[in-house]
């Protein structure tokens, strides 16, 4: 079906006004040699048939009965009220708020979002969002290069491997070199960034050190030491954080991170096979002119009414063009609104409960696996809600459980050969005691 309202009479009226006989006449300026010949698009479908088609395909997905999979994307409760907010067509079918007088809903909600991200991270200014945590990280690295006028960036191998790949791709543009700082992967080791390697990697041409807290392996990094090391070498510290953890962990401003980035998916956004998500970025006010992305600011109209506008737009592509800090045009406004609604719905107490429940269940899980003799922690040192465990023949056993509808976390060997037989298990507030028991029992049966 189509959504055009035009009847034959409507079309005839328009053609007559224009002064052509057929719609085809309006395409006469397409050179004959490039006119489309082939058009093997399937025939139209009415709504009930479209629904059947989409249900057919969705039915080919199997949603796990039990899942401990995290690795950068997390299964959290999305409060019903969040869906109501982002389902409002005034938010979803509006455009970027370039005409602020009729966009105060979008603009004020972005201002609230910026405020919330500043509050979580302890930083002074936050952007209106980026595509995801990976691109926010890459943009932060390039921002650090602009601020320091240096052309190399150092990134801990403890940062999500997907993010590191995206960073490499982004840096290949302006020819910025990426140095990877290894993580201590030894059995019973810290699972965190190797301090000696950090010192070796930081030269006077390194713009920033990027580290994650918690890191990809769920381990808590010594962020203060890493930031100090970076600053000592004249580099910036870019902290990649997990937003729900900030209810419990110190704000990155406490250890003097210069730029903070994160993936906002855990804040009320469905996993949806990888997207859309939302990238967060926050920094100090002193570096705002080098921050990529949109910013909303408060101001007043001529009658003194408070209102909100896109501001500092001269940084952006539509004005700065080839001198822009970034080419970003679309942000992820509706996802940022979801995050705003989520943080409002759970409040400070709720966010703390989300983090604490995840932590409790992660520890419960480790205790249960250890007690059953099924698996041991791979690393020592503190972790939050995600933890790496070692068990023999992990890949085969993971596959057996998958057949049963249980996803036993993430096989770390996929990215890191040194971590064969290691699973990354994530717990959230949705993880039940019964699920933990089921995982332990199922793993035991595959031994």
């Amino acid at each position: 079906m189509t959504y055009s309202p035009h009847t034959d009479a409507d079309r005839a009226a328009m053609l007559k006004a224009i002064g052509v006989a057929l719609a085809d006449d309006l395409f006469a300026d397409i050179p004959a040699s490039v006119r489309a010949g082939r058009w093997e698009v399937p025939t139209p479908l009415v709504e009930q048939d479209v629904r059947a088609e989409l249900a057919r395909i969705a039915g080919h997905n199997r949603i796990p009965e039990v899942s401990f999979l995290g690795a950068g994307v997390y299964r959290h409760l999305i409060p019903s009220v969040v869906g109501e907010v982002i389902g409002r067509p005034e938010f979803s079918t509006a455009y970027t708020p370039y005409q602020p007088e009729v966009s105060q809903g979008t603009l004020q909600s972005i201002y609230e979002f910026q405020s919330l991200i500043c509050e979580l991270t302890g930083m002074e200014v936050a952007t209106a969002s980026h595509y995801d945590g990976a691109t926010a990280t890459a943009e932060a690295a390039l921002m650090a290069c602009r601020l320091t006028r240096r052309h190399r960036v150092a990134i801990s191998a403890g940062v999500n491997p997907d993010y590191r790949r995206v960073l490499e791709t982004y840096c290949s543009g302006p020819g910025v070199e990426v140095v990877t700082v290894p993580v201590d992967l030894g059995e019973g080791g810290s699972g965190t960034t190797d301090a000696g390697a950090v010192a070796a990697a930081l030269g006077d041409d390194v713009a920033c050190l990027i580290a994650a807290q918690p890191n990809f392996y769920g381990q808590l990094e010594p962020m203060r030491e890493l930031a100090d090391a970076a600053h000592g070498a004249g580099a910036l510290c870019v902290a990649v954080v997990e937003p729900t953890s900030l209810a419990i962990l110190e704000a990155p401003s406490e250890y003097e991170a210069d730029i903070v980035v994160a993936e906002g998916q855990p804040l009320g956004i469905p996993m949806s096979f990888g997207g859309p998500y939302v990238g967060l970025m926050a920094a100090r006010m002193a570096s705002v002119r080098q921050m990529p992305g949109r910013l909303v600011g408060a101001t007043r109209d001529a009658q003194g009414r408070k209102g909100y506008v896109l501001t500092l737009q001269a940084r952006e592509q539509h004005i700065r063009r080839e001198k822009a800090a970034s080419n970003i045009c679309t942000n992820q406004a509706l996802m940022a609104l979801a995050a705003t609604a989520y943080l409002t719905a759970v409040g400070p107490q709720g966010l703390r409960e989300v983090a604490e429940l995840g932590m409790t269940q992660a520890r419960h899980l480790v205790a249960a696996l250890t007690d059953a003799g099924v698996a041991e922690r791979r690393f020592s040192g503190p972790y939050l809600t995600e933890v790496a465990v070692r068990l023999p023949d992990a890949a085969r056993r993971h596959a057996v459980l998958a057949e049963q509808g249980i996803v036993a976390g993430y096989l770390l060997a996929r990215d890191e050969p040194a971590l064969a037989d290691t699973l990354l298990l994530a717990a959230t507030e949705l993880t039940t005691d019964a699920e933990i028991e089921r995982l332990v029992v199922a793993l035991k049966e595959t031994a």
Partner: protein
Amino acid sequence: MSVAEAPDRRDASGRGAAFSGAAGGEELTVVEPLIFERSRATRRAVRFPSASAHALERAATQPQLPASVLRRQAPRLPEVSELDMLRHFNRLAHLNHAIDLGFYPLGSCTMKYNPKVNEWAARLPGFAESHPLDPEAMSQGSLEIMWLLAELLKEISGFPAVSLQPAAGAHGELTGLLMARAYHRSKGEGETRTKVLVPDSSHGTNPATATMVGYEAVTIRSNERGGIDLEALRAALGPDVAALMITNPSTLGIFEDQIDQVVTAVRDAGAIAYMDGANLNAILGRFRPGDAGFDVMHFNLHKTFSTPHGGGGPGAGPVGVSERLEPFLPAPMPVLAEGDAEEVRRNAWAGRSTPGVRFALDDDRPQSIGKVRSCYGNFGMFVRAYTYIRSNGDAGLRGISDDAVLAANYLRVSLHDVYDLPYDRISKHEVVFSGRRQKREHGVTTLDIAKAILDQGIHPPTIYFPLIVEEALMVEPTETESLETLDHFVGVMRDIAERAASDPDSIRRAPTTTPVGRLDEAAAARRPDLRYAFPGEPRPPEAPSAAPTPKGPTT
């Protein structure tokens, strides 16, 4: 700006009831406090269960976190009830104009109707609850829909290969230029081809992207017909040019009628021909850039393929590429690991599954430029776009362009006597007027005109773009607006033109019926207030003024 007297704020849009009880016609008072201002200690909306005694007991056997990493003060998130929260966001929603409320002829943005069945599809639990790293056997539906969408985009564009990974149009541009550079490097010309050519009418993302990829953007002028100047292009092409980025139809809404010669010239010079696909809504079924010799094009799923704009995203910017760029596409790519492509397509178009088929993610792509975002792209938008394309089908997609172009030309001929038309030719899906007559004769600018349109419950067209048109007013009606809506818009525009002559002050005072009037953007930029200041806190520190701004990285 200053106004001599405070204008009456009467609500012509009928939304007045949302603002503090004022009924339609009554004077509006201000708007909605910040959510922080509604906060009261210990109020809550959503609650979570307590951990069981068993869980707590097991957890207590594990080491606890060291005090040194713990937060000392809870973040000051709002504390509100669910009802108060919902009212807050609903009232904010009331302050927005949106496609679902009224006409939104923003040129270059393709503000067409966003079908709700697309939303139904994206929310199917099979899609919404699917984790991107689930075992492939559990994700066959997700991989299938990505593969099928790519197949459809290939058919629509004529390109032999498509990547869905870029998250937005600008992101697609980045991907395209990174692939161009990878291609040139593979030919040993990575260091010598340093320039990207862009028309002077281009969208700002084009030169910004060129810079992000370490290229120098060189501007090529347009000719008097509104197309790229072929001679200027030929003169600029040389062994130092990596690519041409061109929008077709152009940002003037005009089809590049020498496009065949443009592409030939670019390819003959060894450069990559990039088409900005923002204006695809004009040419579905009429022009396939892949057939015409382009090397790469980005699609805007949130424009042509109806996924909602969301107030500024999320979008999606897949890219289609020619054979010579295919090896450089981002990884991983959804592929058909088992099954015959022709049979799978045929069955899918008929609504049938193919037995024994298996989709997979191919990460073995040695020449790939890498990844441009985490996971595989904005998957939720793929579901919506696939739903849209299957709904419209072959005839529907062609009909979209027919009706979009018809509507734009109808507006062109209905308004070209009262507004200057710098390029007086057949348009495609959008038409660019100039407000220069109103400015010169009556001191009424395009900005003023736009604000006057706001008072009529219509979103203004795009203003001051493209840069090559003085006082530009870019109107894109799209194919989903009725003739009555179009005629109403014509009436509004003609009335504004008349008032610009007879009562210009009334235009310059606009808008007067919106929740706020014209806002002081200079103050917002000079003394930025970018976050809520909690009571007792100093106002956020200001951005540095006039400190030397460091230059970007150089190659």
